[in-house]
């Protein structure tokens, strides 16, 4: 799945953020790491490419914020080059570092980062005790380093945020994690539900059963609200957040990363997608979760919709990543579309072609007002009354929808018939055996074109 196709699954509220993966090494080994196999194999974004991105953003002003991430980004020797360029170029309002926070224990290093231009630090806090946090990172002392890092950050005028990955190991600790963050002046806490990127069968037993994790998470969100910490949740069903539904933010920044990263990105589904008011922003459950714990059909509670449901684009349907040339290229029936080639745009345009068992149906639209008509081709039959007859086909029309000027509709149908007559060289044919060729109804309001 491409990154663009992924957007279809997530809520695009943060697409003014750009994440740049600078490095793919790490000195922690978090049990839930989603790029474990890619670590040391993926390449970071070359500095030259980042320079080009900055240039482009200076022109487009598409992004307000750049987020440097990895791997563990603080291990990258050229990080400061990226940061300084991001800041001095003036291309971004905010420069954020996403880090495990361990190297921030060094006050000089932290000061250097701040001086270079980082104004937002997004650090990982996964346990409420050193024992739990270090067990998750699999690096003794990492909790203490992080805590010293948070203390160092408190001496600078920077925004401090934490990220906690919600998984089975820490699902009883969320309230305690809030207390630690609060004690260190954190202003925003993110809680991201664990999504396996590699261990799709959850052999590590990390996916948190929501029946157990959500009560703890809701209490943590209560506490955040009580102490004035802004909370953000990701990848959990909104209906299980109780009063904290508004914390759900499944958006993703645009991310500069190897494209194959997205191939394994989890897919989501919810049985109640079409029924729930919040299905536009709520992803439901990951397929991996559903396989392991089921659809949670009795636990999830859809809020009745007040608006009509629109299906999400499927990755294969919408192709949100397709290029302009692909978008304009013929779709399903290029040879049939070619029969209409040359239809003047000022007369109307082709919306789609459909082939049924015995007909080719052209949906045409007039240029003004959006009225449409179906021009139907059936196998040539001399005995049928028709709008027009070409070498191979009988033509008639049906399904006139919308309001239109009679003259406009006549002009469109006449032009379409002329184009099809001109292009019908006998190479296309329709099955004459099935179906009844319909005749146009003789309503006074309907244009007569023959």
């Amino acid at each position, binding site marked *: 799945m491409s990154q663009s196709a992924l957007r279809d699954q997530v809520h695009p509220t943060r697409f003014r953020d750009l994440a740049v993966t600078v490095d793919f090494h790490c000195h922690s080994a978090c049990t839930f790491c989603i790029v474990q196999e890619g670590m040391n194999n993926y390449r970071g974004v070359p500095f030259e490419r980042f320079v080009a991105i900055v240039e482009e953003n200076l022109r487009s002003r598409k992004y307000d914020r750049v987020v440097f991430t990895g791997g563990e980004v603080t291990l990258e020797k050229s990080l400061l080059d990226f940061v300084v360029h991001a800041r001095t170029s003036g291309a971004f309002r905010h420069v954020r570092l996403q880090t495990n926070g361990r190297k921030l224990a060094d006050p000089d290093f932290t000061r250097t980062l701040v001086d270079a231009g980082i104004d937002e630090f997004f650090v990982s806090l996964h346990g409420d005790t050193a024992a739990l946090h270090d067990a998750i990172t699999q690096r003794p002392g990492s909790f203490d380093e992080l805590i010293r890092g948070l203390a160092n950050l408190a001496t600078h005028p920077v925004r401090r945020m934490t990220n906690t990955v919600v998984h089975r190991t820490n699902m009883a600790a969320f309230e305690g994690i809030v207390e630690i963050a609060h004690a260190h002046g954190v202003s925003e806490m993110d809680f991201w539900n664990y999504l396996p990127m590699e261990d799709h069968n959850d052999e590590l037993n990390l996916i948190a059963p929501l029946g157990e994790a959500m009560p703890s998470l809701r209490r943590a969100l209560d506490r955040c609200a009580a102490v004035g910490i802004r909370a953000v949740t990701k990848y959990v069903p909104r209906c299980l957040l109780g009063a904290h539904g508004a914390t759900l933010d499944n958006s993703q920044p645009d991310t500069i990363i190897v494209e194959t990263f997205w191939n394994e990105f989890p*897919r989501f*589904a919810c*049985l*109640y*997608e*079409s*029924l729930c008011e919040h299905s536009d922003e709520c992803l439901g*459950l990951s*397929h991996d979760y*559903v*396989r392991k*714990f*089921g*659809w949670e*059909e009795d636990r999830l509670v859809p809020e009745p919709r007040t608006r009509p*449901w629109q*299906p999400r684009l*499927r*990755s*294969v*349907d919408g192709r949100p990543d397709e290029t302009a040339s692909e978008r304009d*290229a*013929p*779709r*399903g*029936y*290029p*040879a*049939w579309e070619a029969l209409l080639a040359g239809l003047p745009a000022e007369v109307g345009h082709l919306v*789609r072609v*459909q*082939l*049924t*068992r015995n007909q080719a149906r052209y949906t045409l639209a007039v240029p003004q007002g959006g009225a449409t008509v179906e021009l139907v081709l059936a196998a040539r039959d001399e005995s049928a009354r028709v709008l027009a007859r070409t070498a191979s086909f009988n033509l008639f029309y049906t399904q006139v929808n919308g309001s239109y000027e009679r003259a406009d509709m006549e002009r469109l149908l006449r032009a379409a018939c002329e184009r099809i007559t001109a292009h019908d060289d006998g*190479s*296309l*044919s329709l*099955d004459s*055996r*099935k*179906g*009844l060729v319909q005749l146009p109804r003789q309503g006074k309001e309907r244009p007569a074109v023959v």
Partner: protein
Amino acid sequence: VTAPAREMTASRPLVHATDADRYFDYCLQPYDPLRDPRGKLRSESLLWNSLDTAGAPPSLDDALRAVQRTAGRDMTVIGVKHQAGRLWWELYFYDRLKEDPAVRAASIIDAVAPWFRIVPRPRETVPYFMFSFDVLPETAEGGTVDVVNLYLPYFEVQGGRSYKLSAERLEMDNVYRFLHPKTEIRQIVHDIRQSVFVDYSRVLLSRVLLPELIDCNRICVAKKRFADAVYYSGIDVGQLAYFLTRLDYPAPIVDFIEAHRGRLDHLRFDVGIDYAMRADGSVAMTKSSYYCTL
């Protein structure tokens, strides 16, 4: 074409899409192809690959070509059936309005007569909108088809009942209905749970209503004599590949789809899974099928 595709040694040639192709699902309802079909494969390529895989003799190809000539190109739905490592095919013929003598049973029975004999002859006053029969790899070597399935519609509900017709008896076989996977999900869940074969106090619904396939155009819930079944229609080639792997199809079929994925991505596919619960509470997927048109 990928390197593995070039290396595959199939005895039957690939069939390429043409401008004259129409695209139908397994209910013979038209759909718009998902991509420009030029340079890609016709869905019947799946059939020929399965014949290769099953080691079917050329006589079956001849019989199927005769069916295609009689019913019309794209007018025959073929289900490739898989059960315990065995492959066979079910041929379906639709004629909802009883308007086309070419796809009534008598016509098809005559068309295949040089290769095999279809014994039951449905009474044409039976209001069937579709009939089907199975062929095995060896059927076209002078074999017989002893059972014909007749499908009767509901009133204003997309679905039906099927009956097995043989020389000895006519018996009801299954009931099924089609539902929208999103807007009619409560009905789908209800119909699935109404089961004598699966105890849903012991079995997760997700064992039979698969998240990987639910993103489809229609779900069909069927109640059969010895199993329940769920069908997913309108899935894409990626989902088909998942299905074939999940249901343990023979490697040459899985490999064929993977190798030609880029030349099948304009198509939609339909698949079905029969299932029942084992004594230990696990779900046995007893039979499955995927569909194409000929």
